[in-house]
Each structure stands twice: as structure tokens, then as C-alpha cells.
């Protein structure tokens, strides 16, 4: 426990120290100069968080407690941020300049993720059920989705550009819907395809893990197949399905960054802008929120999956 406390304090101290340093630097340097975080400081922060994660693991905390620890680690940094303690850090200065662009990019990022997650969910759950029900479909289905996963994201975006722009050119009403070779449409389609595998695979695995005795009893008591699926199988498979959704969302948050390359926008756009302009702080302004978003989704879904599944009696 003491180790955990120490490990929690450590990254906060690191970040705070960096903030103070940056402020000192800003007083002495010119207005256009930026105080960036050097490699040494990154490694110190990383090591501190790793120590914290390890301490939390050793304590074998349950998911809610782990989420609490994560919140504990993040909250002081957030307070420091809000209080202006890091205002002179390059990344924050960039944010101050690009406040509007950033808000738009963040919303766009969420939009890309949602536009791929919802169709993937609507398609993936039934496909997962189908994969469980039909042994003949299971192999080819999972193999196909597995192959999709191995296509590099940039390649898949590129592959979708040509047919989509052709489609938009051939049918104006499709173009009117906003579907073009670049932008949201190819990004959402590609991310949906990537999202299917974890959802389908985990739905199938979750259903496969339901005790045969529970299904036999449900059948023997006169539940229809539909009732068995909705009342017994899906609730019992829920933790595994949720873990599939967690993988999907974390993956989508990351891949949505790459979608900026085909004009989909989002936080990736800021990141690539920084990359092409060789502006490290701009890269961070795009990348750090992506990491934070992915971690937040991860923690949230782990928390959800750990809640006891109850039904309204």
C-alpha cells in the first residue's frame, strides 16, 4: 500500500516539477520559444506510472479500486492543469492558441469513433451470435475478419477511397449524403471493419462460455430460443462481450488518428500537422488527448465489466 502511495505521488511530482521549470524558462526566453518536455522527463513520468501500475497489480485490487487508483493518479494533474501550473508548457501554450481548432478536432474524433462503433455493434453482435449458432459459418467468418485486421490501416483507407469516390460520382444522392472518397465515410467504414473482429470474436466466445447446464435448464423449462438468448445467454456472456467492446473502442480511438490522413479530421489532424511542421508540442496536443481518451475508455469498460450482472427481478 505504501508503495502504491509513493508511486502515485511520483508522477504528480514529476509533472509539477516540469510545470515549474517551464514557467522559469518562459520568463527568460523569447515569446515564440516553447518549453518542451525532454526525453529524461518523459522516462521519469513513464517509470513512475509503471511503478504505480505494478504496485496496483501486486495489491490485486478489484476493478473498482483500480479505477479509483487511476482517478487518484490523474486528478492532481488535472487540478494542476486547471490551476494554470502547467500554463507555460509548450503543449499548453499551443492549446491556448488553437483552443477552437482543438475543440472541433476532439468532437470530430468522437464522431469518427461513434460512426464506426455503432454500426460495428449493430453488425457484430448478430454476427457473433451467428458464429456461435453455426459451426460452419464460424471458421470462414472469423478468418475473413482476421484478414481484415491484418491490412494496415493506411492501406485500407486507400483501398476504400477509389470505390467510394466512384460511387459518389455515379450516384449524386450518395454524394449528397456526404459520402465521398475522402473524409468521414471511408474512415468510418474502415474502422467498422476493424471493429468487427473483436466484437464478433468476443460475442462468440462469451456465448460459448455460458454453462451448458443453464441452457439445458432454460430449454427444459420451456424458454424459446429467443428467450434463452436474451434472458440467459447474452447476460451471462456480457462480461466477455464488454471486454470485446473495450478492445474495439480503444482500437478505434487510436485508428481514428490515422484517418486524418484521408481528410477525416479529428485529433490526428493536429498530430499530423505537428509532424509535418516538425512542431513537437503540436504533436503532443494531438497525441496526448488520444492516449487519455483510450485510457479513459479502457478504465470505464473494465469497471463496467466488473459490475455484477443483475437483471430487474
Amino acid at each position, binding site marked *: 500500500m505504501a508503495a502504491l502511495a509513493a508511486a502515485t505521488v511520483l508522477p504528480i511530482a514529476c509533472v509539477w516539477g516540469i510545470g515549474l521549470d517551464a514557467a522559469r524558462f518562459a520568463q527568460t526566453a523569447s515569446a515564440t520559444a516553447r518549453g518542451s518536455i525532454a526525453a529524461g522527463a518523459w522516462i521519469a513520468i513513464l517509470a513512475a506510472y509503471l511503478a504505480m501500475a505494478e504496485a496496483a497489480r501486486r495489491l490485486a485490487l478489484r476493478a473498482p479500486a483500480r479505477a479509483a487508483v487511476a482517478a487518484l493518479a490523474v486528478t492532481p494533474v488535472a487540478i494542476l492543469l486547471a490551476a494554470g501550473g502547467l500554463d507555460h508548457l509548450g503543449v499548453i501554450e499551443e492549446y491556448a492558441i488553437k483552443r477552437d481548432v482543438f475543440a472541433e478536432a476532439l468532437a470530430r474524433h468522437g464522431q469518427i469513433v461513434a460512426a464506426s462503433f455503432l454500426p460495428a455493434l449493430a453488425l457484430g453482435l448478430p454476427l457473433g451470435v451467428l458464429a456461435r449458432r453455426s459451426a460452419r459459418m464460424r471458421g470462414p467468418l472469423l478468418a475473413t475478419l482476421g484478414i481484415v485486421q491484418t491490412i494496415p490501416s493506411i492501406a485500407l483507407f486507400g483501398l476504400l477511397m477509389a470505390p467510394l469516390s466512384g460511387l459518389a460520382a455515379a450516384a449524386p444522392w450518395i454524394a449528397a449524403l456526404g459520402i465521398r472518397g475522402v473524409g468521414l465515410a471511408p474512415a468510418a467504414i474502415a474502422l467498422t471493419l476493424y471493429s468487427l473482429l473483436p466484437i464478433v470474436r468476443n460475442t462468440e466466445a462469451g456465448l460459448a462460455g455460458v454453462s451448458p*447446464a443453464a441452457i439445458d435448464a432454460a430449454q427444459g423449462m*420451456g424458454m424459446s430460443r429467443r428467450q434463452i438468448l436474451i434472458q440467459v445467454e447474452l447476460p451471462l456472456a456480457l462480461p466477455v462481450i464488454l471486454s470485446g467492446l473495450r478492445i474495439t473502442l480503444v482500437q478505434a480511438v487510436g485508428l481514428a488518428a490515422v484517418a486524418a490522413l484521408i481528410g477525416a479530421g479529428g485529433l490526428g489532424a493536429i498530430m499530423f500537422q505537428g509532424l509535418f511542421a516538425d512542431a513537437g508540442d503540436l504533436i503532443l496536443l494531438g497525441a496526448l488527448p488520444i492516449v487519455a481518451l483510450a485510457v479513459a475508455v479502457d478504465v470505464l469498460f473494465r469497471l463496467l465489466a466488473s459490475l455484477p450482472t443483475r437483471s430487474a427481478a
Partner: protein
Amino acid sequence: MIEFRNASKSFDGRPVVEDLSLTIAAGTVGVLIGTSGAGKSTALRMVNRLVEPSAGEVRIGGVPVRAFRPEELRRRIGYVIQSVGLFPHWTVERNMATVPRLLGWPRRRIEARIDELLHLLRLDSGELRGRYPHQLSGGQQQRVGVARALAADPDLLLMDEPFGALDPITRAALQDELLRVHRATGKTILFVTHDIDEAIKLGQFVALLDRGRLVQAGPPRELLAAPANDFVRDFVGGEERGLKLLGTETAASRLRRGERVEGEPVPVSLSLNRALALMVVRGVDRLGVVGEEGAPLGALHLADLAHP
């Protein structure tokens, strides 16, 4: 009344049940017994159409089960399995309400029925209703399983090795419980087991299956006293079947009325195999017998155990 009429079932061309004809009278406990793979579970599952016979048919009360929609048929038949099959994500109460809810009973009627069943199966001590299955002992889980099967008050109860996974003491207690519930409700029960002692204790009618075929059927005494062949004799315990035979009777049946014997008396309801064991333990050849109220009734002689 359950009737099997020349019922057969093959899986992938391999016969599991062959030409089974059998009648279990209404209100009795019928036991299907045999080694694993004898086809007894398959036969049981024909009754609620979890298995459809390849040939022949099963009738309940004279009506072929094929005449009912499977779901509707099953909601009218209680079903208990060895691994209990309680739904782990539902409370005891919600589990017990399964069939009544499927039948669309109003909430108040379900509540009242659950109270009744918790009482019948002696589950009303403590707050069991709101617990989840994993919070119960094995014996409690199986009691809930039986209560759940009885929930919609079916006339017929199918039990597939329900007590197989329990320790001997819990199993004996639940067997007594089942007999009590049977006396109280008068349900027709079809019970599958591989344990001959359980079959003798519970069954008014026992059918021994071997590799899908019926070998011998009748009251347990009949199988013990007159095994049809070597397989039956071995299955019912070889020479030890004599002791099991004694187990089917109580002191009342060999009582010498009016005779007095020194030493601690035994109740008239004591089974004869236990009486014999007691004589060996005490080193005596006769025991005093008393009635339910403790009034002396007579004596039991060692010699009478061998010759009725």
C-alpha cells in the same frame, strides 16, 4: 401417467434407446436406472421433447407429447438436472419465478407461490430469496432447483440425476425431502439415477436399462428378489442385494407382537437392514420394538430376518 411406446432413438446411426416400452402410473415415483450410456437420460428427455424419438412415441395421460408445442409442453413439466442449472445471474427468487413468468402469471400470484415453495422446501429460514446461486451451498442450490421445477405446479416432474453431485449426507437429506414433497403433492415423478440405493429408496417402480434396452422393470423388491438375469443381479449388488432387500421393509413387517426384550428398543419404522446392523453391533439376536409414541409393541428376531 407416462407411457413409452416402442420408443427408440439413434444419434448418428448409433442406437441410444431401443424399443423402450414402459408405463409409469400417475402419482408414483418411477426410476430409470443403468450405467452411464445406458440411455436413461435420453429416455427422460423424450418426455419433454428435448429429444425426439427416432421411432415410437411417448404419451402423457394418453396424449402423445408430439401433440404439444415443445415450449408449452415443457412449461407444464418440472425439470431438474444434476448440475442444477440455476441461472447464475438471477436471484433465488427470480430463478424460481422462471416458469410462472413464462406463463405470464401476475406478480402477486408469483410472490405467493414463491413463499409457498420456500416453505415447502424448508428454504424460508434466513434471507435466501435475494441471494445469488453462488452464495448457496450445493444442497441449497438443489433445493432451489427442485422448488423452481415445482413453481408452476406441474403434474409431472422429470429429474435427471439431481442429487448425483452432492455429498452422501446432503443427498440422503434431499432424498427424504423429495419423498416428503412427493407425499405432500402427489406429483408423478420420473427420476434418473445410476445409484441402486437411491432407486430402491425413492422408486415405487424401477426400470433397469442396459445399452439402450430395458432389462427388467418392476417394484424394487422384485428386481432384488427375482433378478431376471446375471446383469440385473450384479447391478443390484450381487449377494449384497439381500441387505438391500431388507432395506425395503421395516421392523413392522417381521414384528412378534407383545413380546418383551431387554435393552434399548428401536422404533417400528426402522428398516430391517439397519435392525440387522444394530444386532451385529450390540451382539444380540433380538431387539425390542416401540411405536411412534414410545409404547412397547413387540420384538424383532434375527431368525425372522432370513425367513419371513
